[in-house]
């Protein structure tokens, strides 16, 4: 009896020891490198490196892609407490080149002592040069499949080198956080698009329709949202850029802007500015036989927020009405510009006309959706604008 007990206790202990030893997936957080930003560029030829690698006996490399990941926090060498003294940047960018995104991801393990984990990836920046060569589906396929990377990650384009968006000359800022937080300023300026997450992008790519992605320009070492890049739905490649005003105009057409302004000149060539308080738009598709046409109704309420003309008196309704007309005219010309760009220059629809058609005329949509961009560039678009200045701030002048 007693011996039997011993065996039982022993086997139970053995079992628990087996269990305890098996902390299979346990990896301490500080032993991993968290990367928050990823930038993909066209592969660069680092002659020096290739030479050195060849001396080491490496087979000739053909680098298609260059990936830059932004790692925070930087590993500090036990310098606890006196972090303020060193003016080091709070992040490290690590660059690798290779043929596939995943290959690059795993190459970091060759040069870094800690494995990189993508749970906290916030921003992916793609260079437009790269997107000229490869479809966005190909480039982002890994990020959509990977189990670490969350689909809430935002995707942007970069004019020129995407890696530049990941560096900034402000020492305390982490560029990827900076970009992500800038996206939240949408309520102040409609030149910022609603951030496109990987989930959104997944859907956009699946519809095979064209769309735009916000572009980041690195100006004097600072990241700046400037305009957008157009991705052609069929090929998934970048075909051209829109500037900031175009982005704002698209937000007017879609009615998605949350804030922003219209600036124009009054009759004495003085600057007057309209602050958008609300905007609404309605795209009404009209189908006649095979031809599709659209009418856009834009309505907005706002405030006269700035006036350089001392002779104006906005406390009188006629003046306000006149100003409204001027703002409307300005906005109309902006919208006409973007419509021209879409329909004649790039021949794409990136402002949601197709979506509206699919909602109201699903049968028609089914017929035209495969070459919607062409159909759209042939269809006529009209619009009406109705701006209302509801107040003029705390100064009546």
């Amino acid at each position, binding site marked *: 009896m007693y011996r039997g007990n011993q065996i039982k206790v022993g086997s139970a202990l053995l079992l628990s020891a087996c269990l305890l030893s098996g902390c299979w997936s346990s990896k301490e957080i500080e032993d991993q490198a968290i990367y928050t930003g990823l930038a993909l560029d066209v592969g660069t030829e680092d002659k020096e490196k290739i030479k050195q690698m060849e001396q080491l006996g490496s087979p000739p490399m053909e680098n298609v892609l260059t990936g830059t990941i932004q790692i925070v926090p930087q590993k500090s060498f036990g310098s606890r407490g006196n972090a303020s003294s060193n003016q080091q940047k709070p992040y490290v960018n690590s660059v690798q080149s290779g043929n596939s995104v995943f290959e690059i991801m795993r190459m970091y393990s060759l040069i870094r002592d800690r494995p990189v*984990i993508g749970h906290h990836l916030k921003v992916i920046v793609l260079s437009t040069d790269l997107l000229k060569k490869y479809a966005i589906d190909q480039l982002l396929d890994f990020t959509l499949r990977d189990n670490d990377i969350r689909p809430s990650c935002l995707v942007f384009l970069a004019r020129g080198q995407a890696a530049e968006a990941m560096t900034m000359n402000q020492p305390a800022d982490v560029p990827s956080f900076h970009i992500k937080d800038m996206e939240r300023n949408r309520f102040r300026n409609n030149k910022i698009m609603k951030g496109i997450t990987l989930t959104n992008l997944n859907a956009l790519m699946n519809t095979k329709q064209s769309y735009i992605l916000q572009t980041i320009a690195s100006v004097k070492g600072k990241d700046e949202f400037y305009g957008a890049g157009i991705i052609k739905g069929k090929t998934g490649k970048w075909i051209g850029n829109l500037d900031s005003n175009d982005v704002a105009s698209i937000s007017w057409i879609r009615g998605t802007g949350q804030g922003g302004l219209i600036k124009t000149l009054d009759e004495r060539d003085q600057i007057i500015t309209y602050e958008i308080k609300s905007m609404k738009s309605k795209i009404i598709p009209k189908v006649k036989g095979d031809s599709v046409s659209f009418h856009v109704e834009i309505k907005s309420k706002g405030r006269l927020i700035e006036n350089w003309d001392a002779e104006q008196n906005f406390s009188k309704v006629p003046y306000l009405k006149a100003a409204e007309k001027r703002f409307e005219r300005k906005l109309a010309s902006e919208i006409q510009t973007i419509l021209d760009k879409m329909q004649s220059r790039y021949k794409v629809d990136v402002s949601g006309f197709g979506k509206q058609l699919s909602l109201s005329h699903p049968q028609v949509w089914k017929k035209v959706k495969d070459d919607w961009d062409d159909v759209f560039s042939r269809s006529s678009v009209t619009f009406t604008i109705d701006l209302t200045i509801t107040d003029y701030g705390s100064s009546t002048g």
Partner: protein
Amino acid sequence: MWSKAVNYVPEWKTWVEAGLTLLAPLVMRRLSTTLRTWVGKRSPQEPQASTAPPSDPLTGDFQAEKARLKQQLGRNSDVHFREFELAGSQTPAMLVFVEGMQNEDLICNQVLKMLMQEPLCTEGELDQLSGQHLGSYLQDRLLPLPGIPEVTELLELKRSILSGYTALLIEGLPRAFLVGTPSPRTRAITEPTSEALLRGSRVGFTEMISENTAMLRQQGRTDDMVIESFEVGSRIQRTLAIAYMSEIVNPDLLKEVKDRIAAINMDFLAESGYIEQLIEDNPLSPFQQVQNTERPDRTISALLEGRVAILLEGSPFALLVPVTFTMLIQSPEDYFERWLPGSLLRMLRFLAAFLSLMTPSLYISFISFHPGLLPTELAITIAETRQGVPFPSLIEILILEISIEILREAGIRLPKPIGPAMGIVGGLIIGEAAVQAGIVSPMLVIIVAVTAISSFAIPMYSAGITLRMLRFIAMLFASVLGMLGTILFFLLLCSHMTKLKSFGVPYVTPVSPFRFNDWKDLFIRAPLPLMRHRPNMMKTEDKKRRS
């Protein structure tokens, strides 16, 4: 088709693993049954040889009785034999008592003075006063005492003397009078230390069972409350009392309690904790299945809920049965304060219970397994603060948790004046120094502190211990399987608690089985006018609180 099916036949390794799946629980099962038979052997008391001890009456022969008593009790140095003669006659008499257990004044003034100074009566009468007459004369005319029990059996006399009575033996009388009742030294009634309240009575039970039952009676006047006494302990006997409201308590519950008390077989019951462990349902469970309290007001309200209180001589802790898990998290103050703060405090305590149980294991699963589930900024902060910590999170947290436990244990034993000082020194200095030394991360100090404080927010001390103990098991689970381990631990705990019963009441009532009426007194404490019924789970005879 066949080859395709063969493809899916698992490899031999899978078969081995499947075998292991079976083996491990079988081993566990054998282990638990063995342990259960070991621990839970509640052998009922052997039917006591109810044959009364051989009758051994007192004879009235003074010298013979004296010799017999001296022979049997004389070994005890604290037993005193005071011999004297009755005033006015040469009748020898003797007082026998145990030093320190009787009231000196009473014996001197009311007994010795009367017997030795006042002549009994005239000479002539004295001769007639023998036997029966002398006895009744003493009782009726001489001794101004409220009650003078008589003892005729030697064995009983011996027991009475040892339990503190003063016996008077007189030549010629085949009886002994118990002239002095035992007056043991008691302490003052003090505030209950383990269940102190800001608002509420300041009275706590003492070690005297008669005082305790009196305290229960003094809570209010009722003819409903019944206090029944039992003698427990096979070698040293103690009085055990059970109290209940005869019109409220469920008779089945009462019978169960009595049965279990009758089954107690132990030579001595030092504290009510012995009773608790001997009558509980599942001795292998980490949860207490009997509530203990020092507070008469808590006891009386438990009785009104249809529960039964068990009091033991020599213990200031009353036991309340049955108990459910949620009762352990309630405090009498919930009812004394207004219902809103009462409810909020109660929810706070539930939160505290959860925190004290789960925080360390959540920490481990986040830090070591799922950095992706933390908010980004937090993840980066933690990663930064943990730079240079040499241990994995399990070891790190064990270091600090165990030192906190040691501190707590030491704090109880420290002399009062230096206790708080040591607590501060220990808590603050050790935490700070450990961070400075880079053994633990500052985040962890917060975690451990929150855990420790939470565990003290639980009003029942013993429930707090249970949670603290389980916390370590939760940590082990988390360190193997991360979040999944933590969840499995929670599920295991739930499974165990739903299986557990306290005197037939499922331990997690009223959450499950769901009793909506009892929810008024669960997470919130409903306003008193709403609480019209006694708890459903007690299945009381009288359901309504109000007539």
